[in-house]
C-alpha cells in the first residue's frame, strides 16, 4: 500500500503555521539563504533534475520552462504565480494559500532569484478573500523581516511581490489570459507562439507557474534531487497535494507520492458513501479531463498512466460520484459552466459551448434523440483544437468522455427525464454534512 506522505501539509494543524513565526518554527525560510548562496543557473538545473512537473494541470516540466527564459538579455523578467484555481473539482491551491502562505512566498523568492526576476506577481482569484489576505499578509511579514525587498539577506538580490486580486473569470487560469488580465485588459488568451518565456507580461520574459508547483521549491532546495525523486515514478516524480471530493466518507486534502492509486486514496478517504456504496464514475483532475469508472481505480495517479487510460492527471483533484448520479446531468452542468466562462474570443468555443449546452438540456428533460448524440460528437469535434486556448478543448471533453462509458444513459434520456431516472435527493449528502 502506498503510504501517505505529508510534506507541504505536514504542519497544517499548527495553530499559527500561517504566520512567519509559526512557519519558521517548523523549518520555514531555511531554504532561502541556501538558495541565495547558489548560482541561479544551479537552481534551475536542480529543479530540472528533480523532474518536477507543473501542478496546474498541463504537467509541463518546471525546470525546462524556467530554462526557456533568455538570460542576461537586459530586459526585466517576471514571475507570475497562477493562483486562479477555478477548475471544477480542484481545491488544493486555495487550501495551500490559507494554511501555508509562507511556503508559497518562500518558493516565490527562490524561483524569482533563479529566473532573475525582480518583481513577482501572485494572481489570486477574487472570490477567495481568505486566501488573498493570508498570502498578502505573509508577503508583508516577509518584507518586514527583510526576506522580501532590497538586498535580501545581504545577497544583493532584490524582489518586490505584488498580490493581485482577480474578479471572477475562469479563463484567467489560462496563462496568457491571466497575463492580459494582469496587464489590465479583459482576460482573453493570446495566440502562442510567442510563449510567455520570451514574450510574457508587458511582452518581456515571464514564467507562469501554479501555486503548488512553486510551493514545492523550498523542499527541493532543502532536501535535494535524490530525496525528491524517491517519490513517484521516473516520468512523474515527486508528491502531490490531492483534494478528494464527492461521495466519499472523508473528503479533504491527502498528500501522497504520485503513482498512488485511486483505490488507495479512496481507502484513506473512508470509501464511498451513499447509493450502493460503489464508484460510478470519477474524474482524476478537474472537469476538463475525461472521466473514468470503477474499472480504473487501480490506475496509478501519474501523468503517463492517466494518459494511457485515455484521460489526464490534470490538477490531481479527484471527484468521486456514486451510482445515484446521472452522468447526463453532470455533463450538462459542466457544459453550462464552460458556456458561462468562455471568453468569447474564438467562435468555435463561444458558439459551440452554447449549442452543446442547448442540446444537452434536451437530454436532461428526456427529449434528446439518437441524432442529437451524433450531433454532439460532431460539435465537440469542431471545437477541440480549433480555439486559441485549452478552454475550448476542455469544453469538448466531458461529453465524448461520458459517451464512451455511459452511452446507455444518453439513450435512456431520449425517453425519460434524468430527474425521474435519478431522483436528485438520492445524491444529497446532508446527513454526512450535518455530522461533520
Amino acid at each position, binding site marked *: 500500500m502506498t*503510504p*501517505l*506522505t*505529508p510534506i507541504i*501539509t505536514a504542519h*497544517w*494543524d499548527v495553530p499559527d503555521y500561517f504566520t512567519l513565526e509559526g512557519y519558521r518554527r517548523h523549518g520555514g525560510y531555511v531554504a532561502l539563504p541556501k538558495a541565495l548562496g547558489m548560482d541561479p543557473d544551479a537552481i534551475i538545473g536542480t529543479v530540472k533534475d528533480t523532474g518536477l512537473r507543473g501542478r496546474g494541470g498541463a504537467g509541463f516540466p518546471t525546470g525546462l520552462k524556467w530554462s526557456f527564459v533568455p538570460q542576461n538579455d537586459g530586459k526585466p523578467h517576471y514571475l507570475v504565480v497562477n493562483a486562479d*484555481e477555478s477548475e471544477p*473539482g*480542484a*481545491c488544493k491551491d*486555495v*487550501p495551500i494559500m*490559507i*494554511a501555508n502562505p509562507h511556503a508559497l512566498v518562500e518558493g516565490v523568492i527562490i524561483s524569482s532569484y533563479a529566473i532573475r526576476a525582480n518583481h513577482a506577481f501572485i494572481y489570486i482569484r*477574487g*472570490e*477567495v*478573500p*481568505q486566501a*488573498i*489576505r493570508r498570502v*498578502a*499578509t505573509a508577503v*508583508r511579514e516577509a518584507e518586514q523581516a527583510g526576506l522580501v525587498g532590497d538586498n535580501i539577506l545581504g545577497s544583493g538580490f532584490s524582489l518586490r511581490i*505584488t*498580490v*493581485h*486580486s482577480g*474578479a*471572477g*473569470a*475562469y479563463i484567467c487560469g489560462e496563462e496568457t489570459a491571466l497575463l492580459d488580465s494582469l*496587464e*489590465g*485588459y*479583459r482576460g482573453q488568451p493570446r495566440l502562442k507562439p510567442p510563449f510567455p518565456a520570451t514574450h510574457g507580461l*508587458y511582452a518581456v520574459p515571464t514564467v507562469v507557474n501554479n501555486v503548488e508547483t512553486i510551493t514545492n521549491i523550498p523542499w527541493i532546495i532543502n532536501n535535494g534531487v535524490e*530525496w525528491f525523486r524517491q517519490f513517484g515514478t521516473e516520468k512523474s516524480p515527486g508528491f502531490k497535494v490531492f483534494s478528494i471530493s*464527492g461521495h466519499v466518507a*472523508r*473528503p*479533504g*486534502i491527502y*498528500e501522497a507520492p504520485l503513482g498512488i492509486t485511486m483505490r488507495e486514496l479512496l481507502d484513506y*478517504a473512508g470509501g464511498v458513501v451513499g447509493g450502493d456504496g460503489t464508484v460510478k464514475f470519477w474524474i482524476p483532475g478537474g472537469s476538463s479531463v475525461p472521466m473514468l469508472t470503477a474499472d480504473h481505480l487501480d490506475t496509478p495517479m501519474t501523468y503517463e498512466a492517466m494518459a494511457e487510460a485515455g484521460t489526464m492527471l490534470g490538477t490531481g*483533484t479527484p*471527484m468521486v460520484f456514486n451510482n445515484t*448520479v446521472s452522468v447526463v*446531468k*453532470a455533463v450538462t*452542468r459542466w457544459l453550462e*459552466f464552460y458556456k*458561462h466562462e468562455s*471568453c468569447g474570443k474564438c467562435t468555435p468555443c463561444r458558439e459551440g459551448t452554447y449549442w452543446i449546452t442547448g442540446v444537452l438540456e434536451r437530454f436532461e428533460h428526456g427529449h434528446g434523440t439518437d441524432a442529437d448524440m451524433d450531433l454532439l460528437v460532431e460539435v465537440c469535434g469542431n471545437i477541440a483544437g480549433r480555439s486559441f486556448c485549452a478552454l475550448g478543448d476542455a469544453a469538448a471533453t466531458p461529453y465524448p468522455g461520458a459517451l464512451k462509458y455511459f452511452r446507455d444513459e444518453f439513450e435512456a434520456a431520449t425517453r425519460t427525464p434524468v430527474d425521474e431516472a435519478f431522483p436528485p*435527493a438520492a*445524491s444529497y*449528502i446532508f446527513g454526512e*454534512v*450535518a455530522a461533520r
Partner: protein
Amino acid sequence: MSYDEGVMAQMRDIIGRYPNSRSAVMPLLHLAQSIDDEVTPEGMRVIADELGLTTAEVTAVATFYTMYKRRPVGKHHIGVCTNTLCALLGGDAVYDAVSERLGAGHNEKDVDGTFWLERIECQAACTHAPVMTVDWEFMDCQTPRSAVDIIDRLARGEEVVSTRGPVIRDFQATEHTLAFPVDGLAGEGGEADSIMLAGLTVARELGMKAPTPGEGSA
C-alpha cells in the same frame, strides 16, 4: 461616499504596485465597488482619468468580470455553488431554499435590497460541498436549513462567522479587502480545518510520515 482626497491617495497607492499603471484597473474597480456598492459610471470615469484611459476601456474590463456589479449589491452578497459537484451533493437544494427565503433568483435581490443572490461557479472548495459564500467568505458544508439559518441571522444583524475566515462584515468591506488585502484579519479562521487536515489525520493514525533526506526509499 465620494472620491475624496483620501480615496485618491488609496488609488495612487494601488497604482504604485505595478510597473505599468494600467495593471491597476482591476484592484481600482474593487476599490470603487467598496465605495459605491457597485461599479458606477462615476467610478469608472475617475479610474479612467487616473490611468489615462478612456471610460470605454475601463468599462470593457468592468463588464468582463462577474464580480463587478453594475447595480447596487446591498449589504450582503450570497453565493451558492451550483456547479456539478456541489449541485449534485445538495447545492441545488441549498440554492432553492435560499432563493425561496429571499424571494429572489439568480443575480436578484430580496425585497428589502439587503441581499443579492447569485448562483456561483466552482469556488475551489469541493471538499467542503455544498458550498455557500457570504460576501465571498466561505460558508462551507451547508444544508438547506443551515443556509437559511445564516440568512436569518444576518437579517437580524447577528454575528455570523465564516467557516474558514473572519466574522462576516458586508459586501463593501470584502471589496475593500480585495483592493487592500492586508486587512488585519489574516489571523482569523485559525489553522486548517478538519477537512483540510483529513489526510494528515489519517497519516498520523497510521503512523505514516514522509521520509527525511538520508532515510532511504519511501
